[in-house]
């Protein structure tokens, strides 16, 4: 049974309430935040150790490794967040509530973006330090790249994780579903970040990649909002 159409103000309020609920629950134990962060850091270190030659890490590896760590940590965070929902059956409760379904999606999406952003705040200086990469030379552009890439990745990830809550083999199916679809996001993110690390940055190229990322964000979020309701209905 679909809830009746509600006004946009109601939708925004619902999204905010969902986000606040998630943040409140998370802040109590910070379990997902700490474990995701630790995983992301160990991911970066793992890659650094694997690719080190004669005591030096590959210079061009910084952009790729950063985004791989974000993708892997993001997948983990998505799995853990929705696992928590599944265990306390809160998702079912949320869906039964007289709330606008897409607004629930937006609330969860914002929560995931917040979590990933927190991880990125730690990862960027770490990668810059380990790979001697001037990641902080164009902070505004790097932030734009990271935010637009994170939104794209999280948009698809939140949708698929929510859908997988009741499925079998959900842990392995999330990457199976998520990674092929988010390949354009990762490619654009890595290319843009790599360009920002060049000694003489070509900002036009970075602008192009950010524009592509934003276009992908629009497509993914729109598709997700459109399909969230029928996908979550039994």
């Amino acid at each position: 049974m679909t809830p009746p159409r509600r006004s946009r103000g109601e939708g925004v309020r619902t999204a905010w309430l969902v986000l606040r609920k998630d943040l409140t629950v998370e802040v109590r134990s910070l379990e997902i935040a700490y474990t995701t962060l630790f995983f992301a850091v160990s991911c970066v270190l793992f890659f650094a150790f694997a690719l080190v030659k004669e005591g030096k890490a590959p210079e061009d590896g910084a952009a790729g490794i950063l985004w791989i760590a974000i993708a892997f940590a993001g997948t983990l965070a998505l799995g853990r967040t929705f696992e928590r929902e599944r265990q306390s059956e809160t998702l079912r409760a949320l869906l039964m509530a007289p709330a606008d379904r897409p607004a629930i999606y937006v609330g969860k999406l914002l929560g995931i973006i917040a979590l990933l952003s927190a991880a990125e705040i730690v990862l960027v200086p770490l990668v810059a330090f380990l790979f001697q990469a001037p990641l902080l030379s164009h902070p505004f552009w790097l932030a734009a790249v990271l935010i637009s890439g994170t939104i794209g990745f999280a948009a698809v990830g939140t949708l698929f994780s929510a859908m997988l809550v009741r499925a079998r083999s959900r842990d392995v199916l999330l990457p199976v579903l998520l990674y092929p679809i988010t390949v354009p996001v990762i490619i654009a993110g890595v290319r843009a970040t790599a360009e920002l690390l060049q000694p003489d940055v070509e900002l036009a190229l970075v602008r192009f990649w950010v524009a592509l990322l934003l276009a992908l964000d629009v497509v993914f979020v729109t598709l997700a909002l459109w399909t969230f309701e029928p996908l979550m209905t039994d």
Partner: protein
Amino acid sequence: MPKWFMPLAGLAGVMFAASPFVIASVRYESTMGLVQKIFYYHMPSASMFLISAVVCGIASARYLFKGSPRQDRLAYAAAELAVLFGAITLVTGPLWARKAWGVWWTWDVRLTASLMGWMVAWAYLLVRKYGGPGSDKLAAGLALFGMANVPFVYISVNYWRTIHPKTSVVPTLPADMGGALWFSFASFLLLFVLLLRLRVHLEEQRAKLDSLYLSLDE
């Protein structure tokens, strides 16, 4: 199976058997020579791959929003065909590229996006097989995202610096090469329709089996 199936299947068989001869009778391409003849199978199978992805996406959307089981069966069949024709494209392409470009593979936009689309089709099949209850809707959602990739694959060669031939090649083909291409394309299209119908029939029989088991339990 409908009445038109067997006659058309016969026609498809004949056209396919004839296609190598049709292709052999056409002139060579000046820079690529003999290996360019792979084009007459590579381009139609790539088209069928993209068409399958679109059919799967549209059927999935209709299944998600209208709930018709027929559309779900169609989507499942189309996804399998996307994997099949995608595999053919991704094998014939590199075999041609080895001679024409000097490399088996390159990470240009069209190839990367096609490989990605193929993986989405595989993911669809994996979800349907191992996802458990609710996996039909899950896969339908995935198929929609996969369909969004199709126009991108098509226009990518025209807007990016890429080694893959542009879409302008096909409309500017001289008459004999064009004739061979469209003959091959027609055979592939006919085969696609037939395979789709056959595969949907398999799904219908499976659904019939499920309902029989259910009636047995009552």
